[in-house]
């Protein structure tokens, strides 16, 4: 990384992309967990359909991948 022009230089290396993707996935997991808690509070947490709800959320979030 060049430190000569910190105002405009690319700061993250290509190898940081894996880590950034991991950060996003960590956030996604927290979101999934919180979303299920909200579903419980709202009385909409049918356990039998939990997998379907989470599958749908993952599909929406990861859509750019596919």
């Amino acid at each position: 990384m060049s430190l000569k022009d910190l105002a405009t230089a690319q700061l993250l290396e290509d190898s940081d992309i894996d880590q950034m993707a991991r950060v996003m996935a960590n956030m996604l997991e927290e979101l999934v967990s919180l979303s299920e808690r909200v579903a419980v509070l709202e009385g909409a947490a049918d356990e039998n359909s939990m997998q379907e709800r989470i599958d749908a959320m993952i599909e929406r979030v990861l859509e750019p991948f596919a």
Partner: protein
Amino acid sequence: MQPSQSISSILDWQESEVPRVRMLLAMRKFWSSKLYPRLRDEYEEALDSSEAPTSAEEVQSIVEDLPSMGKWAWLDRHIQDRLWENVARMVEERSDRITACLEPRSDDLGSLTLETDMTYPKYYEEIDFHRQKGGIWRDDAGAAIYAMGARVIHIGKNDTFGLHDIFARDLETDPPAHILDLACGFGKTTFSLKKKFPDAYVEGIDLSAPCLRLGRRMATENGLEINWRQGDIEKLPYDDASFDILTTTMTLHELPLESIANSLSEAARVLKPGGVLVALENPLVGEPLRDLLTHYHSQIILEPFHFDFRRADMEKYLMSAGFGEASSKAWFPFGNKPGIEKDLRNWVTPWCWYEAIK
């Protein structure tokens, strides 16, 4: 004082953990049912604009340039790491209870024979198979992490290892007197064997002492009298012609080919004449893209010998080991229907049932 909780209840998912486990499954579904078909589309498009590949190397050069290849590999690796990280955290929260629960008790069923100075194969010590950091053999936490992780793959469907019950159900044999489960781990198959053949002497052998301790506790809680022994399947600590049936599920592909040959020779030695060895494994599909991706998947999840195993002629290995007959057939437990693997857009892992008679 006896611990009040069973090991099964300690390792059960807490309500707050279930969404995290189900997210792992959701990501795996996305990986196999969305990303893989995308990769196949890209592959077929690339084939349309080039000569048909004639070698594995040519297929590889096409696949490595596909836009979705890196994403497919990243997600594969990420799901695997996330699985073990999540489960390791869950086990850490339970560690005191697990340690207390695995203490030997006077009413434990069966026997447990551990080596005081176990020598492990070099590959076993060096490789964190499946990316589980530290492996399954160093401490009780490693065994517990493995046991919880093994249930993630089929949550709600294989929580009680029903796949292994189906395996035992499909063993076509007269009730055997002596059964040995090779590389039994914490006993997924061993439990099923004892349930199917309650009057038989059933023993499980594995390198991992923590897994054996865990297996014995689980067996005792389920009223299953099973004998557990620490040992290397390349050097079985049994007399010649000791067992009627030997089983091993999803083991051989974890071994270098030389170790497979040694293990099969030992299996033939300890079987009685007419005795049967049954091994459950995953073969190659026989289609270039699927087989190459399977190879990459094995690399990613740290199963370095898997591809060599899949390309080897196991029936030949069995015959060379001293068996009189050897055969293989496709096996279809729940979820897998005959022919589903022929649709190339399905990411299906086929099962292969190897059977050899001494």
